[in-house]
């Protein structure tokens, strides 16, 4: 399906959801409106409505609106910036990881090639292995389970709501995503504080738990769910809007349970969105530095995710070579995550 088809269907589908609730009739987006056929009048409910013929003109019919040199001139600045300031550091990380480059001393003037020394050193460092483990737990629970789970739940449960309740929830969720990370970290310090923290005040009884010291990993996981659910919610919301409402109605009429509806109709239809979201959320969470603002990696390295580890060895100890080696490990893990998702995506496409 092309993007255009998806978008058009999206716009047509969204107001259709409004029909059953009969709420205040607010349009979901700027593109809503126009005349939309009542959903239930669609008799052919068992088959997917035929997508409109693709608007793609074939190459011969196309008039060149832009010539090659101009096109190259238009593309060059962007690709140049991407190449130099994004791609190059990554390649360089792989190389630097093989050297003993340091900020000061002889190794700073003429770094030597040390081969895989940094990598074996990393594997022998218990703080590295624990950091890797912490990062994976953090990614799984705050990113994949937390953000995606809550994001989907919100998008699914409130998909037909169009009143102030939905707007309020949406604004709150998105706010927590928009407010700068530095501020959010302060908010959560205040929220979790042992003496005057709001969380302790909310728990009945005389609780004075220093959450950031007692449950540091749990704290950053919940913190990150709070922080990042908006993205998953927005994406799933867009995905659910591409579902033909008639399919859901059919399921409802034929007495399918919510779980059956989700399993047989919703998940297969939005699996592409799910995988893309999962991919992005996992990689972002894996590389997140924000826990640093909340805990600084402590107490006693318990929340030192890999990004903080790299910062500590690279900038804290000035060991650029070793830091780069860990960076390289992170890059490779990112790549593996990406490849795994591609694999899954391809397998499912084949099956479909």
């Amino acid at each position, binding site marked *: 399906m092309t993007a255009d088809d998806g978008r058009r269907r999206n716009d047509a589908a969204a107001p259709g959801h409004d029909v059953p609730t009969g709420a205040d009739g607010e349009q979901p987006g700027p593109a809503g409106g126009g005349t939309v056929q009542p959903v239930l009048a669609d008799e052919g409910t068992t088959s997917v409505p035929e997508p409109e013929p693709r608007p793609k003109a074939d190459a011969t019919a196309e008039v060149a609106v832009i010539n090659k040199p101009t096109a190259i001139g238009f593309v060059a600045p962007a690709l140049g910036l991407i190449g130099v300031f994004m791609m190059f*550091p990554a390649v360089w990380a792989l190389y630097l990881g093989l050297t003993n480059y340091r900020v000061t001393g002889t190794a700073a003037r003429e770094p030597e090639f040390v081969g895989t020394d940094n990598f074996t050193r990393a594997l022998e460092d218990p703080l590295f292995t624990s950091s890797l483990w912490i990062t994976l737990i953090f990614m799984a629970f705050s990113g994949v389970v937390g953000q995606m789970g809550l994001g989907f739940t919100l998008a699914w449960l409130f998909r037909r709501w169009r009143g102030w309740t939905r707007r309020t929830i949406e604004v709150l969720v998105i706010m927590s995503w928009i407010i700068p990370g530095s501020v959010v970290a302060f908010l959560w310090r205040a929220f979790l504080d042992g003496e005057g923290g709001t969380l302790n005040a909310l728990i009945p009884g005389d609780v004075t738990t220093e959450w950031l010291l007692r449950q540091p990993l749990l704290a950053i996981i919940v913190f990150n769910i709070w922080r990042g659910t908006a993205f998953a919610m927005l994406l799933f919301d867009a995905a659910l809007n591409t579902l033909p409402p008639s399919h859901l109605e059919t399921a409802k009429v034929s007495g399918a349970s919510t779980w059956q509806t989700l399993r047989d109709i919703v998940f297969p239809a939005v699996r592409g969105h799910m995988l893309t979201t999962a991919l992005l959320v996992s990689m972002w969470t894996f*590389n997140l530095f924000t826990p640093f603002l909340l805990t600084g990696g402590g107490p006693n390295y318990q929340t030192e995710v890999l990004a903080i580890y790299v910062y500590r060895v690279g900038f804290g100890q000035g060991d650029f070579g070793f830091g780069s080696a860990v960076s390289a490990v992170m890059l490779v893990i990112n790549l593996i995550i990406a490849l795994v998702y591609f694999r899954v995506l391809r397998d499912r496409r084949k099956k479909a």
Partner: protein
Amino acid sequence: MRLMSSLQIDETDPMTTVKALLSRIGLYLFAVIVGLFFAVPMLWLLTAPFDATPGLNVSWPSFTLDNFKGVFENPRAVTSLRNSLVLAVIATGCVVVSAAFAGYALSRVRIPGRNLLLYMLMLFSAVVSGTATMVPTFLLIYEIGLINTHTGVVLILTGGMLPTALFILKDFMDSVPRSYEESAQVAGASSIQILKDIVVPVVRPGLAVIAVWALVNIWGDFLTPFILLRSADLYPAAVVIYNFYDETGRPDLSLVSAFAFLYSIPVVLMYLFVNARYGFRFHGGIKR
């Protein structure tokens, strides 16, 4: 119409009504819980800045605006907000302008597999995260002599954000009908004129989306300025907020809270504005 009638029968069934009512109550309960989960940590930002003696607890403030006076009288606070503004505006400008040019060209010139190419590019930008490459990024900026300059920060932020911006924008560009441009071309308009007078007005929502997205990201970015800047007077707000301590070495909460409020307000207002004007959603920008 068979469907219609079966639905109506369903609704008159008493069991179904009870079940529907219960699930409705459960749903409202869940909505309240979720609302509280997201709202409660934010309360501090609304109460503490207006409290004469802000602590870490949320309390009904003994109302005052002195904390804000304190921010405006603090030269570092004011400078850092100005730095944030400069960085955000310039870097966002770079992202939007270069993405618009490149997105337009990529949308109009037929390169085999360009969608896949763009997707790979965006994917790669997620693989090559700024945090994983912080050491080489620092060295690169150091080697080209831009360490401790805003230029260095702008370049790194722009490079990191462009792939996604490009990816989102190209989708919008594809939706511009070519016939507009063709008639403009027949009338003798240059490529730049076409882009400026026809394409940009049509894809304005797309440009708004990536501009807001970039601005919010840059405004809140901590790591890049944190590693690339050394002088305190160049720090943006994201970094400076960690340097507000009182004599006892504890965060100066009256300053921090009011500062955090002022620092958050612009992005929050911008979100509300964009949400009201364009609707803040993803329109198939990230698909597949």
